[in-house]
């Protein structure tokens, strides 16, 4: 163990050790919990108590905890003595005992008292009526899992027959218990192999340790049984094992069962195929199978062939992401994913019209066709396929080349089927069309894939017809609002693609026409009576400006449309979300209308002052928080991009904004104000240059330094300091934290080198009465109500000298620590928890007294 590790553990032990107060309270708590008259304790308290014990034992394997606190073993004994303990207390006891027995020393201690046998052995709850209760079974499994960290525990369980109980619990009616039992077996198998094996296993000589042997035999027996549920349990266990354990012995295990697993693919009597995809995927991902990869890939290929398209989908998309997947398997996987899309394309088009996505020789479309022609399976299969394709397309590095053009054509076909615009050419097409008309689920998924496809090259010839489809969706009054939103997203992505391509004149004409159509339909949507539609339209506009503001054609089309004027009108929308989105959109529009170097001469309506004044007005008068938040974040964005003009203008602008937001009732607006101040400070420093280190912090040169430090003057004039210090006392904690961060940033800039000094509250001799007052006030934190900033208290927040002094003297680090403590740090302590439990018992005692 390195010194650092040892130090860490020592510190953790110290941190989590039981305090004297707690050890005094604990016996009372144990007695209360074991009291059968107690009407069922609060489960949350019991969980917290267990969490505390987990922390206590984590770094302390010694037996001291149980020795020094005999109440713990007494508690277990008294619960065991109860004729009818409540299931929740019994479950708690089992889990507590498991946590305590996690270290070998304490395990032995509890063994000596015969507690573990009585809890986890044959004669324990296992054979009582309480076993019927799922919480007791769950407590038993959890208890065993917790203690399974040393060999004595492993032997205790295996020798006592406990392992058979776990095997049975795999099929428990409670899914939680069944899953926990399965996880426990995985843990035991791994632990047994890794702790008890001295030599690495080989396939020829597999001499498993006893416990592992039992589990492996159980797995093999179950796999060979004729019961689907037993096979499923073992497959679940194996899936979880291969997912979590990458040790070489797993390969030996696999080789023993591979044949059996393979047989399930073709087996018709047991239906476990749906479990196989996940298992095979885990194995394919595992790095330990390098020697046997060939056979694994053969198995995967066979699975892709035999599983239904719905079962094979997740496997296909999973293995396509594996870099070393062989080409032929990849093609097979791709076939699974593309086959439904291929069928759609073929069903919709005349024979020989399009080539389809797949070579007919590799695909047998019969199964997929029959799934697509049934109402119940068609939508499911398509949605699943589309989700897989989207996942695949959103990978940064696509492992395969997809036939993008045909895929796009197929997506367009699906979208046209959904809005009833396509008359299909085949009977299958008519059936699919009938199923898909107005199907929002498929529309949404198809639009997601469409958006993801915009990043790929090779679809350019279809752009015209693609925009026909998208515009039909944007124009149709029947488009559902969520589908419309998705259409907007896809449209904005493809418009970006379109812009990238429009270099030649003909393409430019096409782009211009498409943009005109888009703005026309956007104009109509901005007038929609449905606020969600207005909102998504504005978001769409913002997204477009964000991506395309540098494109001339885009700017021209936008400015020659009605959209900018309408967007401004929506600043007065009755719905606050829409106003907020309108603020954001207008803020972005300003990059084109006012801030662009060659701003168009289109009258006064896009005058910068007008827009700033309008947004300022919203910031000071809008009754809802969302629009005000939007304004402050737009202002910050403008400031960041340097759009607010020269330094003097910016100073005036920031000062105005600060004065508006400092009394805002919405804490997020105030937080936005702090962010603005932070950006302002860093920009000011960037423009004026940082204060030189040589000026720092010797008090004798402070005055001369201040005179030179223009940035400090700027901050004082802009009333930055009063805002920051006031925010330190804000009721809302994030504000105080942020203000403190900004002030600390300023301090580091003005005083880059600091000597460590005693910060335990000693007043600095340099602090005059006003700064001393500030110091005292800040220590009160948010208790300091009505923080006066008007100078009544003698603090002049606009005086650079005082502020520089304040930055130096006030212990901002201490304030920072205080603010960062969570507000419930007192309530969360174990002592408080124990007191809470006792308090509830207290009420019972009081009631008892009342009875007499």
């Amino acid at each position, binding site marked *: 163990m390195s010194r650092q590790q040892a130090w860490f553990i020592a510190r953790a032990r110290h941190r989590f050790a039981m305090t004297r107060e707690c050890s005094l309270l604990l016996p009372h708590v144990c007695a209360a919990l074991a009291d059968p008259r107690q009407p069922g304790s609060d489960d949350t308290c019991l969980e917290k108590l267990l969490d505390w014990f987990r922390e206590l034992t984590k770094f302390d394997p010694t037996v001291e905890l149980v020795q020094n606190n005999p109440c713990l073993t007494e508690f277990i004994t008294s619960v065991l003595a109860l004729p009818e303990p409540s299931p929740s207390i019994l479950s708690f006891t089992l889990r507590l005992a498991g946590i305590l027995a996690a270290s070998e020393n304490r395990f032995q201690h509890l063994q000596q008292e015969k507690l573990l046998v009585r809890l986890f052995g044959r004669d324990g709850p296992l054979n009582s009526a309480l076993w019927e209760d799922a919480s007791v079974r769950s407590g038993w499994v959890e208890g065993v899992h917790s203690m399974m960290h040393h060999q004595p525990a492993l032997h205790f369980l295996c020798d006592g027959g406990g392992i058979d109980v776990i095997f049975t619990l795999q099929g428990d009616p409670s899914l939680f218990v069944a899953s926990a039992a399965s996880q426990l077996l995985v843990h035991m198998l791994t632990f047994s192999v890794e702790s008890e094996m001295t030599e690495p296993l080989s396939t020829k000589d597999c001499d498993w340790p006893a416990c592992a042997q039992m589990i492996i035999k159980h797995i093999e027996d179950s796999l060979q049984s004729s019961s689907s549920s037993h096979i499923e349990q073992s497959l679940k266990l194996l899936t979880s094992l291969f997912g979590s354990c990458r040790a070489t012995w797993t390969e030996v295990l696999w080789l023993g069962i591979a044949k059996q697993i393979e047989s399930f693919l073709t087996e018709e009597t047991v239906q476990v195929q749906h479990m196989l995809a996940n298992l095979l995927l885990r194995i394919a991902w595992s790095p330990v199978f390098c020697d046997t990869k060939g056979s694994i890939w053969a198995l995967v290929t066979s699975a892709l062939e035999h599983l239904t398209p719905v079962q094979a989908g997740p496997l296909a998309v999973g293995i396509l992401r594996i870099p070393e997947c062989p080409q032929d398997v990849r093609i097979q996987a791709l076939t699974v994913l593309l086959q439904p899309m291929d069928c759609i394309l073929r069903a919709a088009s005349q024979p020989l019209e399009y080539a389809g996505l797949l070579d007919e020789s590799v695909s047998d479309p019969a199964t997929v066709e029959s799934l697509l022609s049934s109402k119940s399976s068609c939508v499911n299969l398509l949605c699943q396929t589309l989700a897989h394709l989207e996942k695949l397309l959103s990978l940064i590095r696509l492992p395969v080349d997809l036939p993008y053009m045909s895929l796009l054509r197929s997506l367009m076909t699906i979208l046209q089927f959904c809005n*009833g615009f*396509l*008359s*299909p050419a085949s009977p299958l097409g*008519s059936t699919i*069309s*009938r199923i898909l*008309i*107005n199907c929002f689920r498929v529309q949404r998924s198809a639009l997601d894939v469409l958006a993801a496809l915009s990043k790929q090259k090779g679809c350019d010839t279809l752009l015209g017809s693609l925009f026909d489809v998208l515009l039909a969706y944007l124009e*149709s*009054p*029947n*488009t559902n609002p969520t589908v419309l939103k998705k259409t907007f997203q896809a449209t904005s992505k493809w418009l970006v693609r379109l812009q990238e391509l429009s270099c030649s004149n003909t393409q430019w004409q096409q782009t211009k026409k498409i943009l005109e159509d888009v703005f026309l339909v956007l*104009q*109509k*949507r901005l*007038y*929609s*009576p*449905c*606020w969600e*539609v207005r909102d998504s339209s504005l978001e769409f506009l913002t997204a477009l400006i964000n991506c395309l503001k540098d494109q001339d054609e885009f700017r021209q089309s936008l400015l020659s449309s*009605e959209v900018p004027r*309408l967007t401004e*009108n929506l600043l*007065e*929308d*009755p*719905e606050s979300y829409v106003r907020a989105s309108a603020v954001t959109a207008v803020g972005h529009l300003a990059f084109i209308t006012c801030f662009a170097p060659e701003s168009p001469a289109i009258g006064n309506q896009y005058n910068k002052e007008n827009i700033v004044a309008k947004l300022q007005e919203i910031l000071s008068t809008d009754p809802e928080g969302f629009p005000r938040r939007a304004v402050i974040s737009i202002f910050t964005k403008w400031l960041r991009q340097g759009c607010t003009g020269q330094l003097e203008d910016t100073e005036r602008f920031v000062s105005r904004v600060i004065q508006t937001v400092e009394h805002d009732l919405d804490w997020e607006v105030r937080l936005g104000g702090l962010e603005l101040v932070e950006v302002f400070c860093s920009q000011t420093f960037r423009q004026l240059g940082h204060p030189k280190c040589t000026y720092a912090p010797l008090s004798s040169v402070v005055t001369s330094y201040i005179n030179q430090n223009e940035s400090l003057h700027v901050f004082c004039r802009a009333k930055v300091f009063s805002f920051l210090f006031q925010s330190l006392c804000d009721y809302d904690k994030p504000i105080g934290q942020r203000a403190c961060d900004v002030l600390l940033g300023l301090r580091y800039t003005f005083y880059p080198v600091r000597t460590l000094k005693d910060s335990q509250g000693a007043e600095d001799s340099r602090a005059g009465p006003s700064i001393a007052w500030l110091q005292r006030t800040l220590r009160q934190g948010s208790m300091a109500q009505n923080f006066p900033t008007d100078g009544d208290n003698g603090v002049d927040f606009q005086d650079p000298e005082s502020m520089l002094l304040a930055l130096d003297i006030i212990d901002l680090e201490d304030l920072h620590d205080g603010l960062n403590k969570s507000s419930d740090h007192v309530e969360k302590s174990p002592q408080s928890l124990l007191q809470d439990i006792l308090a509830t018992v207290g009420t019972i005692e009081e009631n008892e007294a009342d009875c007499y």
Partner: protein
Amino acid sequence: LKLYCLSGHPTLPCNVLKFKSTTIMLDCGLDMTSTLNFLPLPLVQSPRLSKLPGWVLKDGSTFLDKELKECSGHVFVDSVPEFCLPETELLDLSTVDVILISNYHCMMALPYITEYTGFTGTVYATEPTVQIGRLLMEELVNSIERVPKAQSASMWKNKEVQRLLPTPLKDAVEVSMWRKCYTMPEVNAALSKIQLVGYSQKIELFGAVQVTPLSSGYALGSSNWIIQSHYEKVSYVSGSSLLTTHPQPMDQASLKNSDVLILTGLTQIPTANPDGMVGEFCSNLAMTVRNGGNVLVPCYPSGVIYDLLECLYQYIDSAGLSNVPFYFISPVANSSLEFSQIFAEWLCHNKQTKVYLPEPPFPHAELIQTNKLKHYPSIHGDFSNDFKQPCVVFTGHPSLRFGDVVHFMELWGKSSLNTVIFTEPDFSYLDALAPYQPLAMKCVYCPIDTRLNFIQVSKLLKEVQPLHVVCPEQYTQPPPTQSHRTDLMVDCQPPPMSYRRAEVLTLPYKRRYEKIEIMPDLADSLVPLEIKPGISLATVSAVLHTKDNKHVLQLPPKPPQPPASKKRKRVSDDVPECKPLKPLLSGSIPVDQFVQTLEKHGFSDVKVEDTAKGHIVLLQEAETLIQIEEDSTHIICDNDEPLRVKLRDLVLKFLQKF
């Protein structure tokens, strides 16, 4: 069970159902699409319309140029608009006992039926249907009568001449049946024959059937009807809606267990979702007004306009239209807006609860109060003083052939700033606009039809599971313009029966039972005999008495007392003679046992032959033959009566008597 189909229009139906001994007319819709062939009736002299050239035949003949005018390649009849009536020849309409009206749009042909056919029956409808129906008729009569037309064209209707005309006039059906509009006295006379009914009220018709209106959710007071006897149930579903608009929701549960369901009045625009269309309507309206243009909305004075006004009430502020005036012009505008507020019990739950607050159920009251919505009987008078542009005008008629809308089309048609927005689905907007071409004004088609679409129909049919569905032929195939949309047709099992104009359908349902009452004293006299566990039978001898379609079994009259005098009884006093009753037999004869019995009784040479229907037992010596079949037994012996009686008694031993 017969159905006479008098109208070919699926949403303006007129059918006659013969059920038991009653003749019931289901709706009498008036197909007004015929008016699209006529020139509009302008309120003030229109130089443009009066200057239209007369139509000249290909051979140069001009004999029709007074009757037909040409406008932008279309030919129109220059005459008072006429309507296509329901068939009157298919059956004698004077035999119709009752007319059931399902909603105010489906009663516009009522005066033609009640006043011209010798109809003497009763019409049943709900109160809002009658009141709003009256408003629609009043508006129609008013719009046509206030623009008297000097000439009336009839020459073009001549079959020989019609053949020469261009489409669509050439293909217009039954032009000889087209009639001018009725008059107000006829309307009043027709409406006086209506008896008001409430939802779920049971109305007995001649004791034979019971009819009940149910809420159909489409319009104020709109109903579907249940027509049932004791053992048969026919549902008539017409113009229903499952959307949450202003009327009471549709009552679906009561339609269950129908033997026949007649399905009419589905949405005319199945591909348009009404919510989307309302959005489209609002966006286009706002875009036009914000650009300084006027919006014209041709509409009926009642119905969807209430929902549109409600929607605009919420939308006006968000779109910055607070200062734009909304005008509603109709001779019945005021009554329509006021009527809508007083039919609280016919409204959806939300609106009903408002009445108790108390608040007006529709927010158009507030629009009127705040002067945002103003209504006028016509463009003359106050309106011309108040008129400000840009504005939004709601006015009729949606066909654009008469009413104040004609004036606004002429006034605003030349500017591309203005927009006409079609919301009523009854007329093709392109046909409606044809006589105004060339038109600079923008046209937007946002048909709002809240009636059932095919998905909703398919769910409804699955829910109520009628044995047979009958519907207009238009619903059994995809729309002609979208032949690939096989989802746009009624899909049920067994497939629906379809009908077309002037067709008589024998409904596939056979009546099997009739309810008969047994008088208590007769019931007292019956002695049931258990013939199988749980099944008892009794013979009933009684007189069947039938009056007003009710059947009663009464005790037979006592056997006539020997006449006290020798006077001959009068024939008219004669009552059915009651013969003493022979017992009825039941059971079957087991041949083997029967043969054994015969042998026991000394018949030695018994031979049995199997036949298709049973057996023949042959007694060779006695030359006798006993033919045993499932429902008859014959003993054939040659004049040996004692033998026959003996054999008969042996047969009877195997049968039960009661």
